[in-house]
């Protein structure tokens, strides 16, 4: 018996930010990430009949997105791309430079940092999922996207004092959730 239902009408509101954050930590290009997320939703819609309801909608969409990301890297690592890299080391003057360039830099923790950021990002989104929809939306706009108070108030038609009450509730819940799951 399936435990989870599928409803593509709610996908953008519920999962687009989560999928985008998942993608951007893996492809590091804003536009490519947006395209991959969009492709994921469209592919999900096409293969809706394959959804068995054993996993959550989000997990199912992530499995599609993972394949999209792999396809993206396959595409950019085509033969043409490899040949371009080799050409860089055909020059006599720079012969041997590749050795130096390929020595691991002990101070470069980029990969490790990215992995930790990605896990932390997922923990933050898991906590955001537990907030009421409006609270999560306002918290994201204010804290992650850095919108001005006035812009949010105009966009959502709320007063500044109302915004601060919502932010206060969201921050209290987020701090407590992250304390439980991350710190």
């Amino acid at each position: 018996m399936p435990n989870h239902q599928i409803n593509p009408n709610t996908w953008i509101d519920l999962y687009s930010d989560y999928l985008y954050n998942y993608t951007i930590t893996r492809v590091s290009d804003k536009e490519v990430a947006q395209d991959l997320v969009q492709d994921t939703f469209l592919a999900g819609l096409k293969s809706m009949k394959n959804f068995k309801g054993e996993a959550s909608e989000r997990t199912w969409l992530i499995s599609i997105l993972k394949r999209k990301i792999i396809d993206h890297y396959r595409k950019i690592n085509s033969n043409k791309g490899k040949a371009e890299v080799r050409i860089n080391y055909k020059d006599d003057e720079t012969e041997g430079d590749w050795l130096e360039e390929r020595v691991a830099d002990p101070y470069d923790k980029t990969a490790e940092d990215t992995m930790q950021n990605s896990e932390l990002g997922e923990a933050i989104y898991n906590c955001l999922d537990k907030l009421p929809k409006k609270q999560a939306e306002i918290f994201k706009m204010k804290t992650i996207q850095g919108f001005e108070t006035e812009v949010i108030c105009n966009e959502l038609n709320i007063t500044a004092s109302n915004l601060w009450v919502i932010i206060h509730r969201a921050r209290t819940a987020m701090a407590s959730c992250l304390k439980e799951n991350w710190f």
Partner: protein
Amino acid sequence: MKKKSFLFISCEEAQLICDKAQYNEASLWEKIKLSIRLSYCKITKTYYKNNTMLTKTIKESKVKCLDPNCKKNMKKELDKAIKEQVD
């Protein structure tokens, strides 16, 4: 009616200022009042500590969100595809 104090603020007011301070939206005067409250109130101190930790964590995570306009376009595209699938 209770007279509002010039320097001493309530715990709720201190927490509100603390929230605003996380977004650099607290005035200097508000920050002074918050500092006074922090010097003697344990609850405010705990809230301040957790709140600052939350800001730091989110900043360090470099977590990202979709641009609202991009989200609107995505929604439009998906709605169109849903409609086509139904038809």
